[in-house]
């Protein structure tokens, strides 16, 4: 009897230890995010004085003053609208053109198909940073600097998403398309009425991943925006945290407001999100 209870004890103990380790690790990973959120509620001085103690995680004095301050001093509303315009446009236009090219590569036969495929694969490996400055030079010569379109256009066609759609469409069963072809439907009709509804998960993944990429893009807007008129949020926070007088509470409020849209999207879609990341990894 003693032997049995000892074994059960160690198994329970093992499970408890496992949970404890997991809990600690999870807290460590989430701590900076919590810190940001709690700090946004505290008056600026307290953020600094209490930042190095356990009180950093306790809302010792909670108010929304920092949010008001960030709104006013950083023109948060304008920056937010800019980010929304740029991100949503890029995603909507991107989903359209990228999925169409992905479909064409997977299902349609056309002259130069292999060349196009080669171009797409080659461009996946070349990062934006490798050609950002010449692109800036090109576009500044036609007066595109400091506009919305300069932030959107270069990102609409994305080799990564083209390839993602391509592999997804490749896996779809051909019978439906063949049936549609027999019924006399052209490729666009087939695409719109059959393929797109079937590929909804792929569109959702692309939209979410795209949202993550473009909402947080920093390098390109740094290069192409000048004043706050079309400046997006990432550049905004980079500027704001150095804007005198430097107020860390307000900066944390800015940071929180910037993060909330993504956190919401993430928490709502997290299972699909995590699964699509894993799927890409296994394919790789």
């Amino acid at each position: 009897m003693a032997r049995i209870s000892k074994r059960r004890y160690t198994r329970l103990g093992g499970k408890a230890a496992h949970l404890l380790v997991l809990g600690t690790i999870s807290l460590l990973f989430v701590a900076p995010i919590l810190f940001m959120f709690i700090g946004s509620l505290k008056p600026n001085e307290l953020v600094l004085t209490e930042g190095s103690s356990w009180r950093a995680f306790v809302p010792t004095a909670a108010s929304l003053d920092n949010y008001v301050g960030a709104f006013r001093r950083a023109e948060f509303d304008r920056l937010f609208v800019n980010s929304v315009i740029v991100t949503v446009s890029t995603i909507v236009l991107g989903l359209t053109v990228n999925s169409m090219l992905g479909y064409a590569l997977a299902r349609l036969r056309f002259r130069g198909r292999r060349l196009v495929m080669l171009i797409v694969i080659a461009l996946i490996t070349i990062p934006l940073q490798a050609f950002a400055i010449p692109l800036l030079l090109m576009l500044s010569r036609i007066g595109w600097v400091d506009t919305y379109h300069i932030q959107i256009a270069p990102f609409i066609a994305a080799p990564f998403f083209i390839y993602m759609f391509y592999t997804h469409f490749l896996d779809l069963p051909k019978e439906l398309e063949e049936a549609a072809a027999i019924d006399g439907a052209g490729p666009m009709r087939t695409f719109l009425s059959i393929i797109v509804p079937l590929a909804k998960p792929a569109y959702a993944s692309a939209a979410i991943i795209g949202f993550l990429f473009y909402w947080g893009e920093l390098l390109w807007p740094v290069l192409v925006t000048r004043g706050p008129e079309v400046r997006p949020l990432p550049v905004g926070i980079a500027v704001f945290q150095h804007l005198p007088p430097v107020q860390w509470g307000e900066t944390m409020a800015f940071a929180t407001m910037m993060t909330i849209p993504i956190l919401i999207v993430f928490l709502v879609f997290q299972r699909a999100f995590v699964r699509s990341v894993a799927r890409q990894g296994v394919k790789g």
Partner: protein
Amino acid sequence: MRVSTVPVRAGAPDQEPPVSGMAPRSDPSPGVRRPRAGVFVWPALILLLVFQAVPFALSVFYSFTNQRLLSPRPARFIGTSNYEYLVTDPVFHRAVTNSLTFTVIAVPILTGLALGLALLLDSRLRGIGVFRVAVFAPVVMVAAVSATIWRLLFAEDAGLINGVLAAVLPGFEPRAWLDDPSTALGAVMVMFVWRYAGFMMVIFLAALQGVPQELLESARLDGANRLKQFRYVILPSIRNTTVFVVTISAIFALRLFDEVYIATDGGPLNATTTFLLHLVKVGFNQQRVGEASAVAIVFVLVSVAVAVLIRLIGRERREVD
């Protein structure tokens, strides 16, 4: 029922010759409409060519000139002068050393940590999802925001890192982690690993769940303990994934920009300047597009070399087995 599809590799020969769908041709079988692919292909293709391929070609071209960003003077062809300058430029040297050092140290840490986390999280405990989401959460944060937060966490007097270390280690002196050339890069590594661990963990998790259970079972029956199971069954099964994780971690590491731009601006004394930060400073702040293009080309070459190297190392170990 799935129709088997021809696996496509880049450059692999097609089973049938590509048929034109973009230019009208005499139709050999009247009544069968040849699919018109033009409208599907041209929008993305034009965008790719105009906004990515052409600028990249320009990058290569400009690297051999003294092109400037705003000057009305036309650029002069100067051959390999830019590249020669880079060979002697100490700041560029620092950028390259930093990027490579960072990659060589941070990638194994990131990969090891991610694998460890995946093993811990590969469990059917109830509520395990909460822990997975927690570890993955930093991935979702905007990099600029994370860098901002960490800037405060690493602060000398108001920073939590110093606070925690002072509480845990007796006699600990608070350090200005981001202002000290000897610790700045390490601090950035912490930011980097924190940010990407969840992403790599998820990839490993998926791979772990693909490990054939029968192999594990037979190993267990043969008396292998957890460690042996890990070494002889799990590790070999996830080799491809591991190579993949190492590769993309290295790519992310070489492309480090947002964190150093916000938290350290490449300092102190260039201790954290990286390839891309240097590129931006030279091409944008100093307006020297020619030189920046040379930096960009070197960057692409180094990235390709690192990716190939990782692939070779991965493959070599397979043959040794």
